[in-house]
């Protein structure tokens, strides 16, 4: 049976991480948050948000599940009155409820500060609370954690991190030689899970921390070195620290830089000894250096984005939502764009050319989001430095570039992905699985259309210049539908017929048609940007199978079987490949853009060269375009 876990203080630093961890491990989590707050943990199926408070006994009475495990993380850190009310009174009420609800285990988070000689308000209230729990008769586990740290925007360590990254000096109370055993949040969560699962546990008190102690001074020095290496440590006498702590208290600051308890807590030894719990569960916490790397995102994929226009902004927005990726360089020849982009909240230093960025920054992957004309040189520059690339479609400008890039197909150990977005739409992945399943027999033919109404009269701009764009709709939108066709049916054996024509444009093609030849069937492709009344690009796929027909408009799949039965599949009914992909604009395949970026990051991390949109796939796809141009002698086929 799934264990029910009730967590107080679920919105705090430890709390929200623990909710995410335990819900990820399959527990049914009841997360108590205050009425005025918004949950910062993942709202998964097995998480129930409870609005209440340790001071609101009714919310506890109503919501603590019978026979559950209760984890008490809720506390007030410094308010002289509230600390006792919440930490002692609130916990007393919670224990009363736990007894009535026959709670199996009561895991209470106390503090290392309960062991120091001179105690502040927080430490004293926590000690009183510990004593009360020991006398209460519930099956308790009291944890006295040292500093629990990790990434994110909450918690004491985040305060330290922010201070270290912004301030010219870091105040350290006393000589900074007191020792702590900082434990990384994931290790702390593992400890808690072991406690939940340990049925032999009865009324225990544990110190929780890493095996190796470091001084406060060392902790700050290591953090400074990792963040900017410039801030200086400033030792502040304890009395001065207490004085300022008192001033902040009297000023009733909501988020003071520190509390008096921080001053007295960091200047007295607590002799944290976590061996008892770590040995019991055979847990080896990661070192502070390793934890720091994780907390500061040291294992992130570092990216350069070239091209700060519309596509650049869209990809940068998506990439900013990934915890494991960071934009470290922004490259464009227009510095004005950088100012706006920076004010939007995009990170990264500005460079006017890619080579400078690659020389000065540690970069793992390059996003090339510039006009087609520049793709080839930028890709070659990235390759020269051994960097992976994501290129917006099309990869190549002409046949010559395509032939040159063929040389990199073998022996090139970097990831190349091209932004053929339609490959990442749920519905198209579903169509491919239907084809592969052979449910309706073999494919006997198909019609594919990609059409919209953007060019309904003469237009100006680089997209309509043969010299700048390489061609018209075939090179601009053709890669989308031809990539989809290749993804669904494989590389064609040849092009039986093709025709391109101008309707409104004077230099470039507005419409293209072709008949593709496969081993056992033929497929027709139609591409146009001059279809009146179609404001948003529309993809139509019509596949004839031996035992049925499949039709899709990109949002629904309609299958008609031989027996004239109809099967409808909505895109929303198809499970996404990844949960929680940021959808920058649902009207124009926002999820697919998110997915192609996500997969590029995954491919870079795992050095996977075989992604669906890899270099060979891209060259095969775009070869069709240039062959068509060559046949008609109209675009950059030469």
């Amino acid at each position, binding site marked *: 049976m799934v264990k029910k876990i009730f967590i107080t203080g679920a919105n705090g630093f430890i709390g929200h991480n623990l909710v995410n961890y335990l819900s990820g491990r399959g527990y049914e989590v009841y997360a108590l948050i205050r009425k005025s707050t918004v*949950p*910062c943990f993942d*709202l998964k*199926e097995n998480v*129930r948000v409870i609005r209440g408070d340790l001071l609101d006994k009714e919310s506890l009475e109503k919501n603590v599940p019978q026979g559950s495990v209760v984890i008490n993380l809720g506390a007030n850190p410094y308010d002289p009155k509230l600390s006792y009310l919440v930490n002692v009174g609130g916990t007393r009420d919670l224990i009363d409820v736990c007894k009535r609800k026959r709670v199996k285990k009561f895991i209470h988070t106390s503090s290392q500060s309960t062991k120091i000689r001179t105690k502040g308000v927080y430490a004293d209230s926590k000690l009183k609370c510990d004593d009360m729990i020991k006398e209460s008769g519930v099956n308790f586990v009291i944890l006295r954690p040292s500093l629990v740290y990790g990434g994110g*925007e909450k918690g004491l360590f985040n305060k330290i991190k922010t201070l270290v990254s912004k301030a010219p000096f870091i105040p350290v109370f006393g000589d900074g030689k007191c020792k702590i055993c900082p434990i990384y949040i994931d290790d702390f969560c593992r400890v808690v899970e072991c406690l939940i699962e340990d049925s032999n546990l009865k009324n225990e008190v544990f110190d929780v921390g890493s095996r190796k102690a470091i001084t406060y001074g060392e902790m700050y020095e290591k953090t400074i070195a990792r963040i900017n290496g410039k801030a200086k440590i400033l030792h502040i006498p304890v009395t001065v620290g207490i004085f300022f702590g008192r001033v902040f208290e009297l000023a009733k600051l909501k988020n003071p830089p520190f509390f008096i308890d921080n001053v007295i807590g960091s200047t007295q030894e607590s002799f944290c000894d976590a061996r008892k719990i770590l040995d019991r569960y055979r847990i080896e916490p990661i070192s502070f250096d390793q934890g720091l790397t994780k907390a500061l995102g040291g294992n992130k994929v570092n990216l350069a984005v070239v091209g700060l226009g519309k596509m650049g902004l869209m990809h940068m*927005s*998506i990439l900013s939502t990934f915890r494991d990726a960071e934009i470290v360089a922004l490259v464009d020849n227009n510095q004005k764009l950088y100012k706006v982009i920076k*004010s939007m909240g995009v990170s990264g230093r500005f460079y006017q050319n890619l080579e400078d960025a690659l020389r000065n920054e540690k970069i793992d992957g390059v996003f090339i989001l510039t006009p087609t004309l520049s793709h080839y040189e930028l890709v070659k520059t990235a390759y020269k430095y051994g960097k992976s690339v994501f290129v917006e479609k099309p990869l190549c400008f002409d046949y010559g570039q395509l032939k040159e890039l063929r040389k990199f197909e073998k022996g090139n150990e970097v990831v190349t992905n091209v932004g053929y977005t339609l490959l990442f739409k749920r519905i198209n992945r579903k169509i491919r699985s239907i084809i592969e399943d052979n449910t309706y027999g073999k494919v006997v033919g198909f019609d594919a259309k990609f059409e919209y109404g953007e060019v309904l009269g003469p237009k100006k701009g680089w997209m309509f210049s043969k010299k700048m764009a390489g061609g018209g709709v075939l090179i601009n939108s053709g890669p989308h539908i031809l990539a989809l066709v290749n993804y669904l049916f494989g590389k064609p054996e040849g092009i039986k017929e093709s025709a391109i024509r101008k309707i409104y444009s004077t230099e470039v093609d507005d419409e293209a048609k072709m008949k593709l030849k496969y081993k056992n069937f033929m497929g027709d492709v139609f591409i146009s940007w001059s279809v009146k009344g179609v404001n948003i690009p529309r993809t139509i796929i019509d596949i004839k199978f031996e035992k049925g027909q499949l039709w899709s408009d990109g949002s629904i799949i309609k299958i008609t079987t031989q027996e004239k039965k109809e099967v409808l599949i909505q895109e929303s009914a198809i499970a996404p490949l990844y949960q929680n992909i940021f959808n*920058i604009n649902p009207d124009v395949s926002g999820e697919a853009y998110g997915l192609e970026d996500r997969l590029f990051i995954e491919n870079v991390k795992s050095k996977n060269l075989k992604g669906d949109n890899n270099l060979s796939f891209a060259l095969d796809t775009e070869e069709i375009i240039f062959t068509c141009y060559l046949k008609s002698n109209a675009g950059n086929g030469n």
Partner: protein
Amino acid sequence: MLETEIKQKEIGTVNFEKSESVGNYVVVPNVSAIAREMTGTSQIMIIVKKFLALGWISKITLMVNNMPFVFKLLKMDYATGVKVLCELEILRCKEKSKRSKLFILHSQMVDMALALNNRKVMDNFFWLASRYKFAPGLMTKNLGFFIKFMSLAKQLPMDLVVVSDLKNQNMALSEYLKISQIKFLNICE
């Protein structure tokens, strides 16, 4: 808490070129109109043109309100630019009708702010809401991300309304929408 549904077609936009009135729900800024104008003119010129189309009282109100933001505007600060575009449309709307309306910040602005962790965009909109005395609405197409983003906000307006597609959300999220202090409005076709 969950409020009633609104239909997509009930949500209007402010158009400076046409003098048609809008309903009770108004999305600002009018992103598609701006995108159209952007093909022919610069961002600054769009603001200037809209400013010139306002009445004298609105012009003076806008100038007074934006004195503290002039420097940021000249530095092409994105959040300030969005604020001014919204304010121009709010003033235009108020010139046409005295009825109180729910002004909703466009999902493209909200979602980009979420992605880039740019709280100033929302803070500026809340500032407009308190200045012009309307309940601020935020439209999003990424509700899960939005809730996490809001969990780190220092203070949220008491009358905040969030407009989103509330259907097709998982159970935990749907349950939370019922008990949240934020008002959620479902948007449907």
